[in-house]
């Protein structure tokens, strides 16, 4: 029984021993294969996943108002991203990632594919501007998808919230259509301005991304830095906007839809441009809310995404009468002294055209006609002119062209002509005399943008100079933080006859002193302090049988109220145009808005200017706000 007496067992155990040694030998061979033969390959792989070249996002330049108040700031933000070299390949991984992050799987897969194709560059951003809940989600998801990482990058903060939404616009990731449309200009994943000045000033504001070679751990966290090329921040710049005046415009329009434009008569700088309802650009920084933009904002009835100041085409109403007056005086069909009788209505081409005052204004000179805004007077002028005369005058004084402001998608005002009618209505190409009569009081086919209207009144204020409205005031000097003014396109002279100008100037002054605008006590009160000039306008949206009928109509069918002019009367500094939609008479709703602008610009600004814009948005990662040194 003693196994030591059993040679058979000993032999078998001997075989066991041989087998264990061959097992060890087998393992040695496997390791020799991995560690000796394939060493180079694995060394390369180990290096590839630990040493990464990462872009350093460059902060965009800040945007300041003309006094150096910050309108757009940068803050630190965290984004959940996939670095280019970590893009997942397997469809099921992409699908479950999309599910975990509540993203559209097809869109995510497409995006990953295009990023892979594009090679090196900015990472693919899955969720931007993570808040605390977002960070918690990111950490949870990263446990399952180790290729995700969290990137620290600057983000935009629009300090005034809705204050200058349309002017500033917002930024976002460059979309594929734009990249296709302008090949070679943008890189995939790049942040660009999407709207407003962020878009038109993109080249000025954007910086140059840097890059760094770093050692990362399995979670993509930087462990060591082997060297980097710093990012070059975009240059900060000043806008011509005055934040205080802009605030006055915002408050004055309040809940009403409409637009306000104020121009600096010296150079055409835009001192205020507000379109109501406005939007808060901060809400557009997160990619997913693009849905919200498309669904709720762009198609909503109030159209808050439209910058009414440059994209709204409004019948100018009586504010257009000044152009008709110029046309008539230049053609010589009347003199300033020519008396025209208003009986409350007049018949042209077999149709009665009514004046706003049913009892009639009686006999009027041109100054009186402008002050009282007599329609019959200007019907008469229009009847003595051809539509192409009016068009030629409008062309001469810049109303038929885009103003050339440095904002995207400015619309051109619509000034009718025979040619325009032919092109626009091929079925009914003939121009009728009656249409000219309507154009005579700024109704009918004529439509202008508030900006173009403001520019025309700037021309009246400057005795015939046509400025180019602009927002870019100049770059900020990096050392002194002061303004380095940008060159301004010099105004174009239009050879407006000084005699004509003095008649118009007197008319516009009378409007506020004793005419249509003077009916409003607030306007009168301001005008007593600071005499200013301007013209009311009431633009019909629909035609009504009588006033009782009009009163019953829904708000959106009511007339638009306009006021355009300049201030102060005698040594004008600013020109403005105000449109209040569906608000009725220009004198009651638009003129007081203008009066507030004048009051702020000429008085309040100098005594106690409004405080700089402060966003109401709370940013959990923001450093303590830094005091901006006054410049």
């Amino acid at each position, binding site marked *: 029984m003693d196994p030591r007496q059993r040679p058979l067992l000993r032999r078998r155990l001997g075989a066991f021993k041989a087998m264990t*040694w061959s097992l060890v030998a087998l*393992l040695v061979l496997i390791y020799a294969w991995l*560690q000796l033969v394939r060493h180079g390959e694995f060394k390369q792989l180990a290096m590839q996943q630990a040493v990464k070249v990462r872009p350093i996002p460059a902060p965009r330049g800040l945007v300041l108002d003309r006094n150096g108040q910050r309108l757009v700031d940068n803050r630190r933000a965290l984004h959940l991203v996939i670095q280019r070299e970590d893009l997942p390949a397997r469809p099921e991984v992409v699908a479950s990632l999309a599910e975990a992050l509540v993203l559209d799987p097809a869109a995510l897969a497409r995006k990953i594919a295009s990023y892979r194709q594009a090679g090196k560059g900015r990472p693919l951003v899955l969720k931007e501007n993570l808040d605390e809940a977002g960070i918690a989600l990111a950490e949870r998801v990263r446990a399952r998808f180790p290729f995700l990482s969290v990137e620290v990058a600057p983000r935009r903060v629009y300090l005034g919230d809705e204050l200058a939404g349309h002017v500033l616009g917002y930024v976002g990731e460059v979309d594929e259509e734009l990249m296709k449309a302008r090949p070679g200009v943008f890189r995939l994943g790049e942040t660009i301005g999407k709207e407003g000045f962020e878009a038109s000033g993109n080249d000025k504001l954007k910086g140059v991304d840097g890059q760094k070679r770093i050692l990362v751990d399995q979670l993509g966290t930087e462990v060591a830095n082997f060297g980097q090329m710093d990012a070059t921040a975009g240059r900060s710049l000043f806008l011509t906007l005055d934040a205080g005046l802009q605030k006055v415009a915002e408050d004055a329009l309040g809940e009403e839809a409409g637009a306000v434009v104020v121009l600096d008569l010296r150079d055409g700088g835009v001192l205020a441009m507000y379109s109501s309802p406005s939007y808060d650009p901060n809400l557009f920084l997160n990619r997913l809310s693009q849905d919200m933009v498309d669904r709720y904002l762009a198609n909503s009835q109030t159209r808050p995404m439209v910058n009414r100041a440059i994209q709204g085409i409004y019948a100018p109403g009586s504010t257009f009468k000044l152009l008709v007056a110029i046309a008539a005086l230049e053609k010589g069909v009347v003199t300033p002294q020519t008396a025209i009788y208003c009986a409350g209505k007049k018949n042209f081409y077999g149709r009665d055209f009514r004046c706003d005052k049913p009892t009639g204004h009686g006999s009027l000179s041109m100054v009186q006609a402008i002050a009282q805004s007599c329609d019959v007077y200007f019907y008469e002028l229009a009847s003595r002119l051809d539509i192409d005369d009016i068009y030629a005058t409008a062309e001469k004084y810049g109303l038929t062209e885009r103003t050339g402001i440095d904002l995207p998608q400015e619309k051109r005002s619509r000034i009718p002509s025979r040619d325009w009618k032919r092109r626009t209505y091929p079925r009914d190409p003939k121009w009728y005399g009656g249409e000219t009569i309507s154009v005579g009081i700024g109704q009918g086919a004529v439509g202008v943008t508030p900006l173009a209207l403001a520019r025309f009144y700037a021309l009246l204020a400057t005795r015939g100079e046509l400025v180019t409205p602009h927002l870019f005031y100049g770059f900020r000097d990096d050392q002194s933080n002061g303004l380095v003014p940008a060159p301004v396109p010099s105004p174009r002279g239009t050879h407006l006859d000084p005699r004509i100008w003095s008649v118009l100037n007197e008319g516009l002054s009378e409007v506020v002193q004793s005419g249509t605008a003077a009916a409003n006590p607030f306007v009168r009160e301001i005008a007593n302090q600071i005499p200013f000039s301007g013209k009311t306008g009431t633009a019909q949206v629909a035609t009504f049988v009588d006033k009782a009928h009009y009163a019953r109509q829904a708000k959106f069918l009511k007339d638009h109220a306009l006021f355009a002019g300049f201030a102060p009367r005698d040594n004008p500094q600013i020109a403005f145009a105000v449109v209040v939609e569906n608000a009725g008479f220009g004198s009651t709703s638009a003129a007081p808005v203008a009066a507030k602008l004048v009051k702020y610009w000429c008085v309040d600004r100098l005594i106690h200017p409004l405080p700089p814009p402060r966003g109401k948005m709370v940013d959990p990662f923001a450093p303590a706000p830094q005091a901006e040194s006054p410049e």
Partner: protein
Amino acid sequence: MRERFRALDPRLLWVLLALMALGTLTLYSAGRNTPQAGIWLKQSLWNFLGLVLMLLLASMDPRRLFRYAFPAYLVGLVALAAVLVVGRKIGGSTRWFMIAGQTFQPSELMKWITLLYVSQRLGSHNADTVGRLELFGATGLVVFPMLLIQRQPDLGMALSYLPILLIIPLMKGFRTRWVIVLLLLVGLGGVGAWKVVLKPYQKQRVRIFLDPSADLQGKGYQVNQSRIAIGAGGLIGKGFTSGSQTQLNFLPVKTTDFAFSVWAEERGFMGVLLVLGLFGLLLSRILDAAQAAPTNAEAYFCAGAAGIFALHLLVNVGMVAGALPNKGMVLPFFSAGGSSTLSFFLALGLIMGILHRSRVK
């Protein structure tokens, strides 16, 4: 006391101490800058407890232990059944009891109890006259706890019971030729099937069958990282605590299943040769004990123990190199863990006792 230390076999002891030292160094490097930074200390404590346990067992008469084999086996079965009901669920399987804040895995200890009991039963028979029924019965004694363990589920642990069945060819004989042919066939067939015959989705199914947690992170993410670590180690390794795969956490579960990859990355092929050589010496010495054992039961126990150690070595070292499916089986003295460490020392204590008694006799 002196007498007790004399029971320790010096050749086995030196190999053990060397492996323990290397394993502890590996755990130190693996745990650095992670929440598990203290794991090498904890493992040292287990090693110390293990050594004490080994010392106690080595100085006992192994035949006394065999007397407790049957009741211990019954208790073990009850424990395996109980853990399914009241055990702690970690990562989808119920393998552990919580005792005083420590997890305890009964299947580890039960492996050695089963070996002990089966050796005792078969050792009481004459190898030439033992009946088929008895052999089938012994097989059943091994398979039954395996089935209980697979319920946890823990396929790796269940498979580690299989070497106990090596006792049967040891008794009844085998042709070396056939064994070699069989091993080659299984080896080549398995690898060949994996590489050539099976389609990718079938492989995926096999993988998911073998390890349900191996999803999402990419096919064999863990093994892939482990292979990179091993391969990047090269001939002499990246240096202690300098392996990028290890220190930057690319290497997964590096304190348990993939501890050997840490060693391979940081100490290279030379280090691998050293450790594999030490394991060869360990196995060899255990089989020496089998040859020297005074009774059949003791010889069978030693042979089975060598089989279990060899299987752990093969599966773990093979798995981390990607040569075998990713199936959790720890590497003795390298992978951190209390239950496994103590049970390995327990077995070694018995083996030392057997060696000691064979010398004394």
